[in-house]
């Protein structure tokens, strides 16, 4: 296959930068945004005044105009914000690639910065804006009055069906958590640095939304992560090896209702993810067999199994066997979440995972596999309107 999409490999992630990841940053979300954007620009060795675009996704509390104002960026020609929170985590990079490839902007910055642990915690229930009388949050009318209040509980319905259908167990989910904590244990930036767990730890962790245990749930974190996207041509003149954006896609599936699409034929499949996968392979001219490593969105462990299947790394129901085979380990066929994921490193709404994919392409991950890494898949949250990327080395 060869690339068929007009923007494939035309843009690259040239800079990554982050604050520390913590449980209490002690400073404003706005400041975290500014710090991480500056760090990413410094990494790319691009001047602040050159930034002319921002692409964000919702649940970001720092508008691009506030960050532009604080940083003294004089003009922006491109700015966008993708809906659906973590599902859209990779979509701003697509926006940036489209803008750069089409010449609408030259330097587009993506960031996520929040105090999600010390401030409003998504795991504590619906935010105040959940109770508006328009269509935006309408889906909550059918779940909130029954006490279905958190992402963990909303995704537990899928996990239960998946277990029922394929015989997966809580320990199969736990294997994901153990692996993530193993990677995190050797990542100094990870909250769970030097704190690996065993499957017994997972199995004895308390139920949060049965069948999901505490150690099936990602962390809640404070921190900021930013990315700088420029043309591939420009990126080749910058200090780091470019992470070319060879595929970038979004997807909404049939009868999509945010994270509660419970009225479809089967709720243990994720058609929006499959739709994204098909686009990525077509855009990049690649298939799952050419993906060397993956950063799969791991807000909750069961979703990692479902994504392995939707992206074609194994057949439906076989993800547990793929994981048990060691394929996701550092020396395996498909190292996954080498930074420790959101379970182990930090929950920066998926954007810290994009940075790890860039490091894998550069060859600078703290858990860099020995083999050559040419193509890395990065995914956003599921089962919500979804997004994902393929980042590639420049050969």
């Amino acid at each position, binding site marked *: 296959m060869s690339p068929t999409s007009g923007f494939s490999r035309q843009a690259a992630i040239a800079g990554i930068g982050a604050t520390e990841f913590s449980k209490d940053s002690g400073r404003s979300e706005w400041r975290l945004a500014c710090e991480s954007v500056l760090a990413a620009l410094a990494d790319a060795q691009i001047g602040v005044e050159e930034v002319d675009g921002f692409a964000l996704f919702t649940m970001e509390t720092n508008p691009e105009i506030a960050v532009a104002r604080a940083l003294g960026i004089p003009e922006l020609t491109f700015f966008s914000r993708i809906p659906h929170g973590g599902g859209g985590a990779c979509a701003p990079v697509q926006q940036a690639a489209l803008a750069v490839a089409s010449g609408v902007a030259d330097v587009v910055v993506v960031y996520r910065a929040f105090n999600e642990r010390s401030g409003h915690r998504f*795991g*504590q*229930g*619906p935010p105040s804006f*959940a*109770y*508006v*009388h*328009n*269509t935006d*949050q*309408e*889906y*909550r*009318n*059918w*779940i*909130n*009055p*029954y*006490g*279905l*209040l*958190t992402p963990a*509980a909303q995704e*537990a*319905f*899928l996990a*239960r*069906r998946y277990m*029922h259908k394929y015989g997966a167990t809580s320990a199969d989910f736990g294997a994901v958590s153990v692996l993530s904590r193993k990677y995190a244990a050797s990542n100094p930036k990870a909250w769970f640095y030097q704190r690996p767990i065993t499957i017994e730890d997972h199995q004895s962790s*308390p*139920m*949060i*939304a*049965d*069948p999901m245990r505490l150690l099936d749930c990602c962390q809640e974190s404070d921190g900021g992560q930013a990315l700088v996207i420029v043309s591939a041509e420009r990126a080749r003149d910058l200090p780091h090896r470019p992470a070319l954006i060879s595929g970038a896609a979004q997807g909404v599936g049939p*009868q999509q*209702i945010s994270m*509660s699409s*419970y*009225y479809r034929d089967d*709720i243990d499949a994720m058609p929006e993810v499959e739709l994204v996968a098909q686009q990525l392979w077509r855009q990049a001219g690649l298939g799952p067999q050419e993906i060397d490593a993956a950063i799969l969105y791991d807000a909750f462990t069961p979703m990692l199994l479902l994504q392995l299947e939707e992206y074609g790394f194994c057949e439906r129901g076989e993800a547990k066997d793929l994981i048990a085979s060691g394929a996701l380990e550092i020396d395996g066929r498909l190292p996954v979440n080498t930074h420790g994921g959101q379970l182990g490193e930090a929950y920066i709404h998926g954007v810290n995972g994009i940075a790890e994919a860039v490091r894998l392409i550069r060859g600078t991950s703290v858990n860099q596999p020995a083999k050559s890494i040419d193509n890395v898949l990065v995914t956003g949250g599921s089962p919500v309107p979804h997004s994902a990327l393929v980042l590639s080395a420049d050969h």
Partner: protein
Amino acid sequence: MSAPAADSTATDPAYEQRLAAFVGTELQPPTPGPDPVNVPMIRHWVEAMELTNPVHLDADAARATGRADVVAPAAMVQAWVMRGYAATVRPTASAGRFQELVDLLAEGGYTSVVATDSDLEILRELVPGDRVSVEEVVEEIGPEKRTGLGVGRFVTTLKTYRDAEGEVVATQRWRTLRFRPQEKPAPAEPTAVRPRPAINRDNAFWFDAAREHRLVVQRCSDCGALRHPPGPMCPECRSLAWDTVTAGGEAVLYSWVVAHHPRHPAFESPYLVAVVELAEGTRLITNLVDLDAADLEVGMPLRLRWLDADPDLTLPVFGPADQED
């Protein structure tokens, strides 16, 4: 004579004696303030209190009134001897007699406190450089009284403020009510209600029907397709015309979660939230009642019940199929 009520004012004579022994004694020995009277602290006070009298900061204005220099605001006398925030929240040494009195009052059940009045008498104005100290003596511990806050005793102390020469510059009669907090009767209504649905033109019919204990499903008037959750248009044929069918109440269990965390005050954790498939074919999110999590199985039959959660919210819930509501 009837038995004393729980909040009786009858008290133990021995206890009365121990209280009386405090009267006339010193709660706090003469204690100097940490800093002499000074202009920076005066300035903070003047700004915070929005005082307009210039004699506190403007030496010329003070002299024009016959004073030698600026003077501290009279009500500030207490501020010069305050022990500071850190010592207040983290007392280091034993708090001495004052703590003994607090402990004795607590022994009588008077665990709550409210300040009632403070009579300040100023004998001379303080000027920068003055070193102020304070001592406190118990003047009176009153008999037990029934007040709006609860049964308690008024405790009056006298604070005497002196300068470096030992001359009295001010006195303060300080009265507090030490009382037993009244037990509040349990509220008739639960304090927390379930999260509200946001009713609008697209969904009001469903919640209205629920209040009448009717579980309805929206139906396209043109092609007959059922849909839930409701919407303005039929996704099968784009018709805007619709009516409803009333579900018979038979369903099977499709999936469920046992919700443990976070705890919400309207729900008793853990509780069961389920996806059920109605016999009519549409799915519904609901709660399961009279069922144990350990007994649940995908596909098990269920029967509709109604939960009148509060005066404004009625919801369909499901229980075992072999039990009538």
